Each structure stands twice: as C-alpha cells, then as structure tokens.
C-alpha cells in the first residue's frame, strides 16, 4: 500500500508548456522588380511554380547535390534557354497530350540546373541527369550547351528530360516485369561505359547506358525513341542487326567493325576489318549485294563481307520488343500514346526558335 501511495505521489505531473509562435518568419514570395533576375524569376513563377507547384532551381543549391562531386552553377543565360526549352519540349507537350493535370500530379517538384557534369574520377563516367524519388530532376552540363548543335542538345538535354521523367513515371507505377527478362544476362552495371554503342545495339540496347541495368534500359528506350528521328531510329535498328568485331588500333583504342575482307581475296589469309565508308556496294541483276574496295597497293578489287552476328541476340527484335512493352505500359497506365508524344516532341524539336522562346522571359 505504502509503495502504491509513494508511487502515485511521485508520478510525473508536469504540465506541458504551451507552444509559442513559430520562430520561422513568413517567407515573402513577392518578386522584386529591381532584381537582376526578375524576368526569369517571374517566368518561372508563372510557368512552373504557380502552374505545377514546381521549383525551377537555376541558382546553385549545393545542399541539393552530392557533395562528393565537384559541381559548378549553371550560367544565367543557359538557364533561360533551358527554362523555355523544358516548357516547350516537355511540359507543354504533356499538357497537350495528357492534359494539364497530368504533370500537376506526376511531374517533378524540383528541376535543378547544374553547370558541369557530375564526373566520377574513378570510373570516368559523367552523370548528365538524375531523377530522385519521383520528386526532383537534376539536369547537368548546362554550361556546355550549344543551342546550334541539335545532336548535342538531343543527347544531353532533351533526351535527359524524357529519360528522367520516364524514371519518375516508373517509380510511381511499375512497368511489366517482362521487360526485365528480355536482355537478362547482357547487362553490365560495372563496365557499361567501356562498351561500344554498336556492340550494345547488337545486344538489343538503344544505348550503352541502357545496357547498364534494366531500369536505365527502360528509361533509355522511351527517351531515345522520343527524341530520335525516324532516320536515326531506323539506323539504330540496322546497326543492331549486324555482327561486330572489336579491333584495337595502334593507340590502344578499340573499334568495332561489321565488315571484313581477305587480303588478295585469299581466304587463307588472315582477315582484315574495314569501315563501311571505305568500300562501294554493287547490286547484281539477281538482286544479290556485293561490296568491294579497291586496294591501291596491289591494284586489286577486294570483296568485302559482313561480320557474322554471333552474339546470340536478335538486336532489332529485342529493342522493338522492349519498345512495345513501354508503349503499352504508357498507354495502359498513363493513357499516353508514345507515338503521338514522339511526333509532337519531334515537331517541336525540329522547328523551335530559341530567340523566340526566350522572348517569353526577356520581353516581359
């Protein structure tokens, strides 16, 4: 009894302090018209923050980055370019094809521009884009942007946008597991960067990076299909259908060849490999194709043969099978027609005028 009494008396009886007002001051969201960046800030507020609840970070925020990398901020001028291009080639496209609510619901909440690539000194890899947790997309290498180089713009920026957004989508709704089985056994997470894009195409990948792991394969398949023209896509499939043979040159670089010949047309001689631009093609009356090159040293016409495709993979078939899964998944899960999306992006990519787009910022 005594114990109970003592226990009851000594039970804590402290009253909670009443919580005071927050110590965090109200954040003034009003833009300062005198600010050096007012026009861009206004554009970003109206077109990203107010519309999609998306913060477009063009001023370096290193707390949002991996401090193990040496990264630098984006230039102000290129930030304007990417701000208007992201809208034109990405947000406006999805608004048009999937409705305005789509990106409001599933779009990233932060886009962070970074001037340099994230270079990994050990592997020599460079990261040009990151999607994190379905929330944030980081676009790297902004300072190297050459607006007059469509190939570069495609590879480093436009493709990255769609690649990273594909990640956000599959991080939200997973894609069919069947995709992961198509190239199983051919991924190489550690050494993909040492592979050749002809070699990986033949193995059924749209890029070397796609051959690193199946999630990247999935994002790369969608992104490459969206940004590649018909000619580029068909060329990829053509290369994917060939056999390739690696050869080291005198400097130690490895080149992949899909044609070879026998010196002096003698099958007993050791074969030599040749690039496709080094010979001419002849089609016989019976429709058979022959390839030749003229050996300037001997004056002989040498016949050229295709390297047999011995990797055991039907490259074009694998790529198209993956594409089809992605296409169906986008349709079924997101009600997005991939081909329509691709057409819209390509129409815009081939016709945009950066100066006109920039006026959305500069002429406010």
């Amino acid at each position, binding site marked *: 009894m005594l114990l109970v009494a003592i226990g009851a008396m000594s039970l804590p009886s402290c009253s909670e302090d009443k919580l005071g007002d927050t110590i965090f001051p109200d954040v003034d969201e009003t833009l300062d018209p005198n600010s*050096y960046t007012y026009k861009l800030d206004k554009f970003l507020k109206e077109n990203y923050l107010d519309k999609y609840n998306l913060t477009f970070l063009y001023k370096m925020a290193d707390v949002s980055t991996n401090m193990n990398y040496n990264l630098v901020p984006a230039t102000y001028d290129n930030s304007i370019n990417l701000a208007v291009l992201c809208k034109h080639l990405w947000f406006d496209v999805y608004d048009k094809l999937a409705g305005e609510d789509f990106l409001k619901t599933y779009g990233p909440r932060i886009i962070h521009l970074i001037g340099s690539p994230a270079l990994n000194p050990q592997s*020599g890899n460079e990261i040009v884009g990151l999607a994190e947790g379905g929330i944030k997309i980081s676009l790297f290498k902004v300072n190297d942007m050459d607006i007059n180089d469509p190939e570069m713009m495609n590879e480093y920026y436009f493709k990255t946008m769609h690649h990273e957004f594909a990640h956000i989508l599959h991080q939200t709704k997973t894609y069919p597991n069947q995709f992961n089985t198509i190239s199983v056994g051919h991924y190489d997470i550690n050494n993909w960067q040492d592979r050749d894009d002809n070699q990986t195409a033949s193995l059924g990948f749209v890029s070397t990076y796609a051959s690193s792991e199946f999630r990247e394969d999935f994002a790369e398949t969608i992104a490459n299909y969206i940004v590649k023209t018909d000619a580029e896509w068909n060329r990829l499939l053509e290369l994917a259908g060939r056999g390739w043979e690696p050869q080291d040159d005198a400097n130690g670089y490895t080149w992949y060849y899909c044609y070879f010949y026998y010196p002096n047309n003698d099958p007993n001689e050791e074969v030599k490999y040749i690039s496709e631009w080094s010979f001419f093609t002849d089609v016989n009356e019976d429709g058979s194709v022959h390839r030749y090159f003229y050996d300037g040293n001997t004056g002989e016409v040498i016949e050229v043969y295709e390297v047999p495709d011995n990797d055991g993979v039907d490259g074009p078939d694998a790529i198209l099978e993956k594409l089809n899964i992605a296409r169906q998944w986008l349709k079924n899960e997101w009600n997005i027609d991939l081909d329509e999306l691709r057409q819209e992006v390509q129409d815009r990519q081939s016709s945009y005028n950066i100066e006109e787009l920039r006026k959305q910022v500069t002429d406010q």
Partner: protein
Amino acid sequence: MRKYFNIFLLTLVALASVTMVSCKNETEEIFDQDAITRLANAKQYFTDILTDQGGKWKMEYYANGDEPGYVYVMTFRNNGSVTISGENKWISQLNPDGSTYGSETSLWDVITDNGPVLTFNSYNKYFHLFADPDDITDPEALDDSDTDETGIGHEGDYEFDLMKYSGDTLYMSGKKYGINVIMTRLDGSIDDREYMDQTVAQADSFFKKVIPQVYLNLPNGKRWVVKDGYTSILTMYPEGSDSITTAEKHNVIITLDGLSFMNPNTFDGYTVQFFDRQADGSLLCRNDHQTTITAGPLNKVFAIQSLTWKADTSQMGGAFKAKLHEIINKLSGYNSSKFLSLQMAYDSKANSYSIIFNIRSKVKGKQVPLTATFKVNYEMINDNQLKIKYTGEMDDNAHFYVDADQGNCPAIIELIELLGNTYTLSTSSLLAPTDMRFVEDGNASNTIYWRL
C-alpha cells in the same frame, strides 16, 4: 526479517529515485534572439556590408594549397548581381584573343546554411573556372602531356562561410574545402581593369627569374633561402641546410599591398603571413615588423655568377662619362671601331669575373663585333660596398684595342681601374635588384649604372 526490511527500504529508495522526475522545463537562454532571427540578421548584416560604399572588393582567392593565390575585383550590387574581374594565365584560355584579363557579371547571394554563406550561385567563367571539374591544361605548358584529366579540376570553392568583418576586411572560409579567403573593401570608383593591370605589374616586379634566390631574413639574424618566387609557389629552406631534405613549398599571393602566404607559417619560431612592400622594394612582415624578404647584400647579388650586368652608358657620371667619351673617340679612329656596350660577367671557363667591352671593328674589310675581355676580382667591403680590381690580364682582342702599337686606347684600362675604388651600391628594389647603381665613396659624381 531484517533482511526483508532492508530489501523493502532499498526498493523504496529505488522507486522514489525512478519516479522523482524533474519538472524543470526552463531552458537557459544564451542568446537574446532565436536562431532563425539571428541568422536572418547575420544575412542582412553581411549583405549590407558587401553592397555598402559602392560594393567593390578585392578578393585574395586560393583554389587549393598547391597553386598561387589569385586576385579578383568584385562589385556587389543590391539587385543580386556581381561583376567579377580577374587577370591570370587561366583566363587567357577562355578568351578568344588570349587576353589574360576577363570581367563578367553573374549572381551572388548571402544564404543561411549553418551560418551566413556568401555564394556565387550562377556561373561566372572567370571565377568558377577554379571550381569546374573540367580537365586542366596549364596554358604555360609546352604541350598537353601534363593535362590533368582526373575530373576534379582545381577544387576551388565558390561558396564561403562568412567568419568575420573587421577593418574593411571580410574573413571567409571555403565551404567545401575550407581554404581561407580574404576580401578587402576597395574604393567604389576604382576601375577594375586598371586595378588588375597594376596588380599584375606589381606581381611581375616582385620576383625575377634571373635572380636565382632571395632570402627571408628573420629577427634572430638567420635566413631562409627563397627560390622560385616568380611562380608564387616559394621553395624555402634554412640557409646552409640541405635543400633537398629541408625544402618546404609555400604558395603566396601578390597584391598591390604586398605578399601574403596562404596560411601563417613558422620559420625558426617566427610566425609570419603578411608582408607589405616598402619604398625600397623589400617586403616587411606586417605581423612582427621585423622579418623581411630581400635579395640579400647587394655586392653579393652583383657577384652572382649567373648574372650578366650591362652598363647603362646614358647614366654614367663623372670620370666614367669622361673616360667613355675618350674611348669612343679613340676607337673611331682605329679600324672604324665603334664602342657598343660594356658588361660585367663571370667567365666559368676562366674561373674569373670579367669586364667585357663589345666593340665593332673593321677586320679584313668587314665590320665584325668583337669582345675585349679583362679579368677582374671582386672585393667586398661590407654588404653594400664593392671594389672591382683589374688583375692585369686581358685577352687578344683586348690587346688589339689597348696596346700602343695597335689601338692604343689606354682609356679602356683607365675606366676599368676606376672601378677599383670603393663604390656604394644601391638599387630600385631590394627584392628584385635587376638594376644596380655604383657611386664612388668620396666622389659622388663618379657613378655607373648597371642593368640585367
């Protein structure tokens, strides 16, 4: 029973101690204001400091501990822009015309991290080059074989923890790599280009490659040899010690005020960092007002065997001037000879110092340059005094001009012998004495001026 009673007591005590929880909720207030308010105040405080009085600053920037420091001029504006101007060899790689000067406007902010941080948060090509992970090819390298392709760049910071403001100087520390950086307020009307040009000219005047070494002169009379000053990465070791095993590398920055080490360094117990340039060209330590950096006694500098001194005949005075006139006149009548120049040098083959007259004469119908060499010895009187004694030995060319049966120009020997008197040496820079004035003791009109 007693045993059970003891257990009961112990249980009571334990229970009481467990349940007697302190109800004291008050926390001790160390600061008058909460952390957020203090941080906001600090942000405003440093923002105001940076933009005040025209917002112009000199930054003494180090990218890392292995490179020299670089000076930048920065103009901070209230609208969030900053103009950054610099002049160094790395900038030349960024300019199509190869100019070492560059100026560009970008963005800045004071943000609140763990404390107030000055961030340059949009890319400025002339400043962020030291933070860029790009490959590094030294513009002064002969080829690109030394290109650094490690993918980490110079590892320079562009965000700085703001530590302290005192006496128009901001003390900061690089946020990522922790290197100390100083900013000093400049007059808002200063022209960036002029300021940077002056700074570069100052740096160029400090150390001369031709002077192989200078000295850190400590208050206790000991000296440290200082080499490679022209690279702004000093190689230093105690005089008389084994340079291979005792040498230290110290990177420095040269500004219009003087020279600073990146960090305080201790030499024989004396800690030094900042040196102000004096009117005589020497560097005086701002920390102890005693330690200096100079090239050493002038007579010993004049005697450095790798140096060739050339007389500035336009500045000869007194007997030197008169003798030179005699020589010029006399030679003109002998094989159409013409005096060209007068030099002092060390002849390593003859293992001797020499006075060399460069003369052009007609030989076999052709005008050819000839050197007439006279051996001399140096006699050091004290640190700044010197006698140059003629040994009486001369080469065949010298005989050609001096001998009575040939050029018969005794004024040459007379001029040389004038140098045998005692001369006091002076220079325009005790740190880089590339010029040397000789004034004869007791006869100040007799002067001769030498340049490297």
